């Protein structure tokens, strides 16, 4: 077998093995059991709790949890704006990078608070080291907040009737200190040993072979790269993200980083199984996610490894695959694998240019983000999947002749209303904003936002909003993206698409948790079976396909078919 294929298979298998073990550990953390890090980190947690006067044992209902989530985010948002707009004169700025204008700061801070990490700047020149550190902090916070929201939903899914669903701040701190921090530490150290910089010194000067002087950007990169991958953030230290040798020096680091991308999202699914003692349910969810993931991955791999037919027509050998926009040290398979992994998980870091993917394999990452629930972002991926489960439960429940129930709780009008609003939101944001942008380009073709005309330009706009709404943060690029239009509209999309899809599932789970628990009987629809898995899969495929078919037909499909 092709070594490139062996490479991606070993990345995936390693991810699964590690995710399974991590899932067990996360379940322990969420249920408040003792873990091996307690002796070291308990004092740290307690310090946080003492300073903020939070009692980690006082439980909250779902509304209080959401208030806590929003409070944390608003505070950090304001703080972030302050730093981004003033970092030029603040300390830790050896390269003397400037402060950001308001629209760019808004976009950047929203982007990091919302776990999107869409970067309309280049790290080397756009932010100071202080700015990078603050963005790193946000990478922890946004990932931790997502996991804490998932923990609230996990708690709500237990077999009982309950109002109180644990303490949000406690889940939040534990997610950060027990899960993200130790994992980031390990990954950062591996990266450092492979050559990723970790320093507060400014640019280095190197004399090249030709005798020219070259300035090389450095900084505390290894720490940021670790959490950007593990927290499905994706915002790199350098502008070109993980395709830069300093962020991603070799194939081994590429493997480590790729594993880090979907490690926690997959682990959270297993964690659900351990936490609820419903392993079959976890396998059902994992199965559906994986089936969807493979449906996107396999064609992308084959297309990228097959090369670009247009170049082949010119008589140029394409046996090494389509190499445009890719790094030689990774090759087409590892690049395609990364492209799909980073988009299904709302990570958004890149190790190749997605703009240069062949048209159809440019569509698969978009589909991954449009579904946004195949593994998905840390915590939020599961929450998105939860919405699909609720819709599937409703239709399937009717089909077996009972009022739909999910884990012993009746799904009724109120829950359906929330689920439908949350589901609608994603197509609404993507299609309406892409429509707006298309319309403005139609009126003013001279605007400098769009560098490519035609189908490809359409794909670029579609990708930008899809990425914003999925809180992914990867760019198809090719857009003049640091302009007020993209900064502001993407910022708005990211904000709405981050918080409503957290609020919705938490609300549904909270409402369901309060309902009377109905024990299962042989007439109850079991949600941990393969049949129900097929149902969920069908719901995802049909709903997403129906929502985005027209847009995809006009972008990547038209480009592919015209090729």
């Amino acid at each position, binding site marked *: 077998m092709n070594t490139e294929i062996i490479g991606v298979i070993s990345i995936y298998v390693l991810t699964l093995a590690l995710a399974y073990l991590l899932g067990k550990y996360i379940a322990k953390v969420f249920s408040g059991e003792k873990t091996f890090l307690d002796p070291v980190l308990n004092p740290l947690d307690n310090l946080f709790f003492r300073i903020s006067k939070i009692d980690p044992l006082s439980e909250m209902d779902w509304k209080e949890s959401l208030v806590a989530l929003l409070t944390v985010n608003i505070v950090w948002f304001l703080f972030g704006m302050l730093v981004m707009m003033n970092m030029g004169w603040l300390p830790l700025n050896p390269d003397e990078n400037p402060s950001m204008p308001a629209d760019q700061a808004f976009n950047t801070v929203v982007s990091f608070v919302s776990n999107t990490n869409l970067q309309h700047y280049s790290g080397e020149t756009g932010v100071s080291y202080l700015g990078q550190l603050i963005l790193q902090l946000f990478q922890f916070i946004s990932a931790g907040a997502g996991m804490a929201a998932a923990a609230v939903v996990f708690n709500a899914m237990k077999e009982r009737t309950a109002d109180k669903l644990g303490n949000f701040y406690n889940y939040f701190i534990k997610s950060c200190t027990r899960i993200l921090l130790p994992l980031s530490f390990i990954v950062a150290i591996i990266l450092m040993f492979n050559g990723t910089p970790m320093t507060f010194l400014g640019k280095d000067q190197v004399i090249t072979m030709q005798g020219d002087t070259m300035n090389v950007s450095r900084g505390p990169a290894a720490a940021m790269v670790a959490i950007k991958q593990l927290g499905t953030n994706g915002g790199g230290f350098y502008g070109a993200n993980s395709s830069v040798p300093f962020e991603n020096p070799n194939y081994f680091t590429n493997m480590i980083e790729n594993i880090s991308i979907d490690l926690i999202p997959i682990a959270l699914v297993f964690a659900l199984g351990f936490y609820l003692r419903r392993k079959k349910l976890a396998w059902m969810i994992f199965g559906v996610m994986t089936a969807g993931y493979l449906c996107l991955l396999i064609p992308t791999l084959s297309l990228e490894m097959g090369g670009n037919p247009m170049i082949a027509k010119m008589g140029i050998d394409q046996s090494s695959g389509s190499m445009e926009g890719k790094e030689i040290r990774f090759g087409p398979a590892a690049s395609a694998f990364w492209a799909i992994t980073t988009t299904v998980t709302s990570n958004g870091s890149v190790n190749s240019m997605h703009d240069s993917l062949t048209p159809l394999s440019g569509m698969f990452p978009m589909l991954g983000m449009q579904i946004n629930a195949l593994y998905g972002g840390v915590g939020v991926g599961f929450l998105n999947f939860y919405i699909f489960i609720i*819709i599937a439960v*409703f*239709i*399937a*429940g*009717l*089909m*077996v*002749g*009972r*009022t739909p129930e999910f884990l*012993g709780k009746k799904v*009724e*009008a109120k829950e*359906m209303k929330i689920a*439908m*609003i949350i*589901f*609608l939101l994603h*197509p*609404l944001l993507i*299609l*309406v904003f*892409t*429509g707006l942008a*298309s*319309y403005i*380009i*139609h009126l003013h073709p001279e605007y400098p936002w769009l560098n490519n005309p035609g*189908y490809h330009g*359409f794909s670029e706009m579609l990708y930008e909003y899809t990425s914003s709404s999925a809180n992914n943060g990867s760019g198809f690029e090719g857009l003049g993206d640091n302009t007020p239009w993209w900064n502001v509209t993407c910022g708005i999309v990211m904000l709405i698409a981050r918080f409503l899809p957290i609020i919705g599932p938490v609300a549904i789970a909270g409402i369901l948790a309060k309902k*009377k*628990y*109905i*024990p299962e*009987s*042989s*007439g*109850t*629809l*079991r949600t941990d*079976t393969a*049949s*129900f898995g*097929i*149902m969920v899969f069908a719901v995802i495929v*049909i*709903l997403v*396909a*129906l*929502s985005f*078919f*027209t*847009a995809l*037909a*006009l972008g990547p*499909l*038209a480009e592919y*078919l*015209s090729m």
Partner: protein
Amino acid sequence: MKRQRKTPLFQRDLVNEALKQSFIKLNPKILFRNPVMFTVEVGTVVMLAVCIWILMGERDQGSLAYNLSIFFILLITVLFANFAEALAEARGKAQADSLRKTREETPAKLLANGTVKTISSSQLTKGNIFICEAGDIIPSDGEIIEGIATIDESAITGESAPVIRESGGDKSSVTGGTKVLSDKIKVVVTTQPGESFLDKMIALVENASRQKTPNEISLTILLSGFTLIFIIVCATLQPFSLYAKTHIPVSAYVSLFVCLIPTTIGGLLSAIGIAGMDRALRANVIAKSGKSVETAGDLDTILLDKTGTITIGNRKATGFYPANGVNESAFIQNCLIASLADETPEGKSIVELANQKGTTIPVDFSKEKITLIKFTAETRSSGINLSDGTRIRKGAFDAIKKIAADAGNSFPKETEDRLKEISSNGGTPLVVSENERIIGVIELQDIIKPGIQERFQRLRKMGVKTVMVTGDNPLTAKYIAEKAGVDDFIAEAKPEDKMIYIRKEQQGGKLVAMMGDGTNDAPALAQADVGVAMNSGTAAAKEAGNMVDLDNDPTKLIEVVEIGKQLLMTRGTLTTFSIANDVAKYFAIVPALFITSIPALQSLNIMNLSNPQTAILSAVIFNAIIIPLLIPLALKGVAYRPIGASKLLRRNLLVYGLGGVAVPFVGIKLIDLIVSLFV
């Protein structure tokens, strides 16, 4: 024995009425209740405007004929949906009307101040007392306060054998429209005119008072959500097409939109609901609300009375077991004498069995010299005192044991063993004493209804737990429970035991149904999630329950459960079908939209439809005619099979999900072949 009220699905007069109603329902105020079809109507109006626009000289919207055809197809789509609803309503109404006929004006013999006055039945109000004699039609629902009569209830139940109704007890209720065959009864009116169950039922099937059930509301939310998605998809297609420099005519937007929104289920939704009520009515069950029919599909536990439901009528004597040292024939003779005056079915069966054994009434037995001791709830025994002073008693074990013990007599060991044996075999022992001395046991046996085991089996597969309620002792109850295949039993049940059991189950989150007829059942009927009162039951019982079974058939609960499940399943499967249909419609319409500007998209025209206009027309026509094609399914309901939820899901996914994807590909292609002959 059940009355077969099978009317053909498309009966002519019903269809005519439904056709008329289809047009009346075009009124947007009425249609607004159904958001999906309402948007189709809006689309229809838009198409009408486009046609007028073309007449006024617009050139970019395609030919007038084409736009007019789209307009008419959309109009027909709305009409089809209206027709489905109207037909379901008409069928329900016809059903109710046939019942209503029975309560047309009849003369009522009103008893007031000791005199009888004949007035019209409509003038009777609650609390009035009337008299009915042989040959009279009972003018109103009521309760017998005096007398006993045989009554022909065939007008209501379809059951031709007359029934006996008498004052006091649980068989005191009479229904308006039934006929007294013999004797004379005095009846008090229990309902206000226009408030009887029948009236409520009629109002329910008439749309005006039909409230959407909770489940229907949730489904409407889901469908509205899908409609909204497609509003977004179609609205954003406009700027997309501007960017792609493609001109898309209004008709194409409207067609795409109408094809994508779930019109199939949207159009049939209310018909399905009404048909569910109608099916209940056809099973001779009157539901007070659509919600109770839906709840029936969710039931977890069913409480059933043993007598009449699980076993046939009453117990029969099957054996005489004298105590040690008692002569068998003498014992049988004593049993016979003790039962002579016993009018209960058990007593009669003892006489019968004794006669079969060749025992006859002794010669010197004459009625003058004896005293009959009637059964009372306190003594729980009955018997006879003979002229020679002999006192024979028969009754429950503990009652007779007490009599013997009070007189200082012991209870023979072998008789006690015999008792246990009888009990563990499901029999009921009747202990007989002569002069306070135990002389033996009579064995009574229950006869389990044939076929009842299969029915319980079926319920178990549906996930419904059956509970037998009986006054028998635990041993007997256990035996019968096992033999009949019920999951649990309540032995030595007092009326409040049912209530306690229901509460206990409900606390565990279960939905419980019970059937009852007596006044003492009323609290439990009210507590149960589905309480089915028998039509022969007391007014209190009927008031407390949320369904009334006209047939007085206790196994009816099983049917009710299936009707409820069918109702939900029909909604679920048609929703799945409707949404799955969209895949093919996309492949029909999207390539057609961009044929000129993006010729490459023609490779998406996998059905190879002739041209853009026929493609769009075929999709819209398919979308319209699928509604009437599915009316029979909506009205009859998807067949329920108790094969377990997962299997059922797989089966329905395969049939309606996969079928829903495949059918329109074939259908649209066929329609395209036909349409292309004309265009």
